[in-house]
């Protein structure tokens, strides 16, 4: 593989991972925060409806 090709592949995959993985992981954290809130509050939090 040439250095130029490697650079392009590395750049594309890195950007895809930063965006894709960032969104996926962010949603996981958001959902868990919502479940934590639901387990500690007496009322049902709004975020549960969006899950």
């Amino acid at each position: 593989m040439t250095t130029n090709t490697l650079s392009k592949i590395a750049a594309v995959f890195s950007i895809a991972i930063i965006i894709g993985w960032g969104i996926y992981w962010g949603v996981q954290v958001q959902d868990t925060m919502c479940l934590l809130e639901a387990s500690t509050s007496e009322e049902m939090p709004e975020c549960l409806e969006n899950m």
Partner: protein
Amino acid sequence: MDVVFIFQWLDASALADFTKTWAGLFAAVQTVHILSMVMLCGMMMLGDLRMMNVILKGVPSEPIIENTKKWIYLALVLIILTGIYEASAIAMKLAYNSFFFAKMAGLSMGIIFMLSLRNAVYLRAPEEIGANGERSESVPVWVVKLVAFTSLLIWFTVAASGRWIGFS
């Protein structure tokens, strides 16, 4: 794909019986698991932050990357072995834990990323970020830094997901 049967099998295994019987040993294995994670992330950070030109600017990057490799591999082996031991004790809990799957996905992605792109890009780093001597062809500085940032992001989320397993 339903993978619950794997957790059911692990939960009914002799290893699970042993783990549940020896609770004190579980704590010791968990300590090794966390220390291995610290070693892995530490070695990764050393290499990645060097390639981002944040730390050890006066030291060539090649010996840093080369010397941290064996510790990264050792840490990975320890993480996986102690991880299986720990998982056997709480297999059915993990079967429905979204952060456990996030951690496994991150770990797999981190290993593949390291063995394929990270290693290949760092081997062809330009002289500006500390490679030994001039190269006929090298990867642009911004690509090296982007790969280093991605590597840091992946391993941060793997470590953080492990911590979040306890909350979800």
